[in-house]
C-alpha cells in the first residue's frame, strides 16, 4: 500500500510529444509506471513509442479520458505560461490526480487554479514547480531520478526536489525505504501541502513514520505542526532548510521568501518544538531521527 499512487495507477502524460514530456514518459515507463495515454493539442492520432510500447496520443485530456475512462492521474509537461490551462483541462476532464511540474508559473494563474479546484473536490493537484511523487517499486509519477528511492515504510513530503533525492538516498543507504514520497513543490502557491498529505500517511497502514522537509517562507510547516499535535498517530521527523537565509530575498524557490516576520525558520522550529516533532539540524540527522522513531 501507499498513498495516491500504486502499481495499478493508470497515467496520462500531457505534452507527451514534447522533448521533456517524451523523455520523462519513457523514464516513467522504464520504472514500471502504467503510462497508458498521452495528449498534445494538434497531435491527436499519433502514437508515442518507447521501450517497445505504443501509447496513443490524443488532442485533449477529455478525449484521452473518453478513450481511457480508467485514467487515475496525469503529469503535465508544458511551458509555465500554459500550465494553468493544462491543469484546468485535466481537472475538468475529471482526472483525479494532477502533477504539475512547471517552474515559473505566474502567481495569479496559480491562485485562480487553486480557487477553481476548490469547486472540484475530487481533483487533487500536486505542484507546480515540483518533481512529482513516487511509490518506490510501484509507480513513478514525476521527474525524480529513480535510483535514489527504495521501497519501504517511511512517508516523505518535501518542498524541495534535490533534498528529497538526498534524503531518500540517505535513507536507502541506511536500508530504510519509503512508502510514498511526494515533492509538493517550491512555489508560494501549491495545490497540495503538508497538511493535505499528513492525514493520508496517518491512515496508510503501510507507513510507519513521516519525514517532512520544509523550508523558509509561508506558514505551511506551522499549520502542519498544529495538525500533527492534534491528530498524528505516527512519528514525524522534520527538516527545515534556509535557516540562515536573509529576509526579503527569494532563495531559488519562489516560495522560499521571508516577508516581514512571516516564513522565518525560527517560527517553524518553534512550531515543531511545540508539536513535539523532532527537527533534524542536518540532513544526516534526518536518518538518525528516523531510525530512532522506527526503533531501529
Amino acid at each position, binding site marked *: 500500500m501507499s498513498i495516491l499512487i500504486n502499481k495499478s495507477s493508470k497515467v496520462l502524460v500531457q505534452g507527451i510529444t514534447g522533448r521533456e514530456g517524451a523523455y520523462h514518459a519513457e523514464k516513467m515507463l522504464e520504472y514500471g509506471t502504467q503510462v497508458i495515454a498521452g495528449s498534445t493539442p494538434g497531435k491527436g492520432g499519433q502514437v508515442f513509442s518507447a521501450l517497445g510500447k505504443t501509447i496513443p496520443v490524443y488532442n485533449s485530456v477529455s478525449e484521452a479520458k473518453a478513450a481511457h475512462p480508467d485514467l487515475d492521474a496525469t503529469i503535465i509537461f508544458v511551458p*509555465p*505560461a500554459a500550465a494553468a490551462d493544462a491543469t484546468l483541462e485535466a481537472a475538468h476532464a475529471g482526472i483525479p490526480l494532477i502533477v504539475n511540474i512547471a517552474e*515559473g*508559473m*505566474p*502567481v*495569479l*494563474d496559480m*491562485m*485562480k487554479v*487553486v*480557487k*477553481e479546484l476548490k469547486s472540484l473536490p475530487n481533483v487533487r493537484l500536486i505542484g507546480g514547480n515540483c518533481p512529482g511523487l513516487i511509490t518506490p517499486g510501484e509507480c513513478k509519477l514525476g*521527474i*525524480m*531520478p529513480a*535510483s*535514489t528511492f527504495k521501497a519501504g515504510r517511511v512517508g516523505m513530503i*518535501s*518542498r*524541495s*526536489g*534535490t*533534498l*528529497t*533525492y*538526498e534524503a531518500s*538516498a540517505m535513507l536507502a543507504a541506511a536500508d530504510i525505504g519509503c512508502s510514498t514520497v511526494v515533492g509538493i513543490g*517550491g512555489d*508560494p*502557491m501549491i495545490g497540495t501541502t503538508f497538511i493535505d498529505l499528513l492525514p493520508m500517511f496517518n491512515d496508510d497502514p503501510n507507513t510507519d513514520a513521516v519525514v517532512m*522537509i520544509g*523550508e*523558509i*517562507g*509561508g*506558514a*505551511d510547516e506551522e499549520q502542519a505542526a498544529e495538525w500533527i499535535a492534534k491528530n498524528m498517530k505516527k512519528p514525524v521527523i522534520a527538516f527545515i*532548510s*534556509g*535557516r*540562515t*537565509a*536573509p529576509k526579503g*530575498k*527569494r*532563495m*531559488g*524557490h*519562489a*516560495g*522560499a521568501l521571508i*516577508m*516581514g*516576520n512571516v516564513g522565518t525558520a525560527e517560527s517553524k522550529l518553534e512550531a515543531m518544538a511545540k508539536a513535539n516533532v523532532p527537527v533534524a*539540524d*542536518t*540532513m*544526516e540527522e534526518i536518518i538518525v531521527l528516523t531510525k530512532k522513531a522506527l526503533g531501529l
Partner: protein
Amino acid sequence: MKLHEYQAKELLASYGVPVPAGKIARTPEEAKAIANEYASLTVIKAQVHVGGRGKAGGVKLAKDANDAFEKAQAILGMDIKGLTVKKVLVAKAVDIAKEYYCGLIHDRNVQSFTLMVSKEGGVDIEEVAATNPAAITRFAIDPIKGLRAFEARQIALDAGLEGNLNKIAAMMVGLWNACAGSDATLAEINPLVITTTGEVIAADAKIDIDDNAMYRHPELEAYREVEAEHPLEVEAKAFGFSYVKLDGHIGVIGNGAGLVMTSLDVVSRVGGKAANFLDIGGGAKAEIVYNAVKLVCKDPDVKGILINIFGGITRADEVAKGVIRALEEGILNKPLAMRVAGTAVAEANELLKDKPINIYPTMMEAATAVVKEAAQ
C-alpha cells in the same frame, strides 16, 4: 520586478486611480522647470528601490521653483542604503486631511491576495502589523471574481476610514484592477490621502511585478532598470541561474534550491557565512558549471567556494569537467571544496583524482574544509 514610485503611479493612473501630478527630473534644472510649471508647493522624492527614503532625507517639500532646484540638488546623487539617487519625482503637494494605508499582498495563507487597510497610513505597514495588528483590516480577495465595490466599501467601513466612501472604494477597486491587470505580487497605496477638500488621492505607491508573468506585459519592460540590480545578479540572470548576492565570504554553488539553501545553513553551522546563493538548476552540463564557477570567482567578497551537487539528472562527471575547465583556464583562483553524490560520481572522482581539488563525501565535511581554508 520592483517599480519606482513614479512608475507605480503611472500604472495606477492608467487604471483610473487619482494620483498627484508629477514628473521625473534627473537634474536640479529639470526639477525647477517642473515646479515652475506646477506653480505650487511640490514634493521632491528620491526614486530608489529601497524603503525608508523619508527618514534618509530623500523626500523634501519645496515651496517654489528655486526651492525645488535646491532640494533636488540635495537629493540627486545622495546615497540611500547603498543606492545612488539618479532621479527624483517632482510632484504637486496635496493638502492632507487624513493618511490611510491600502495594500494588496500575495497571502499564502488565504491562497490569494489579501487587501489590507488601515487608518495608520504614511508609516511602515510592517511596523503597524508588528505593534498594532488590530489597526489593520484584512480581506481575502477571490482571485477569479476580483475585488468588488461593495466589498471595498465594507472593508473601508470596518477599518474605520473617514471620507467619501464611494471614492475610497473606487480607489481600492482601481488598485486591485492594476494589481491583477499587471500581475503584481504587491501593490500598495501608502498613504492613501483624503485631502482637505475631500478628494481621495494616492500620494505614494509601491508595486512589485511577478517576474514569471512579465511575458504577458511587454509594456512594463520599459520600466526595468538593469542598473538598479547588482551587476553579478544581472550576469547570473543572463546565464539563467538562480543567484542571490549575500554578505558573507563563501561562494556556494549547488543544484536545487533546497540543496543550496541547506548548503548555506551548513556553511553557517561550521562558522562561515555564504557570499551568495547559486542554483545551477537540474541537468547542468560542464559549460554551465564552468560559468557558475567563473561568476562566483568574479565576486571579490568570495574567499572560498563550496560546490554541493546531488547527482540525479545532473551528472557528477559533467560538474567535474566544468570545474576542471575553470581551473585550467586559471579562472578558479580560490580554495574550493566539492561534495558530489549520485549519478556518475565514480567518473567524477576519476576525472578529479590528479587535480588540486578536494572532494568530500558529505556537505558538512566539504563546508568545514572550505571555511577553514578561506579563513587562512
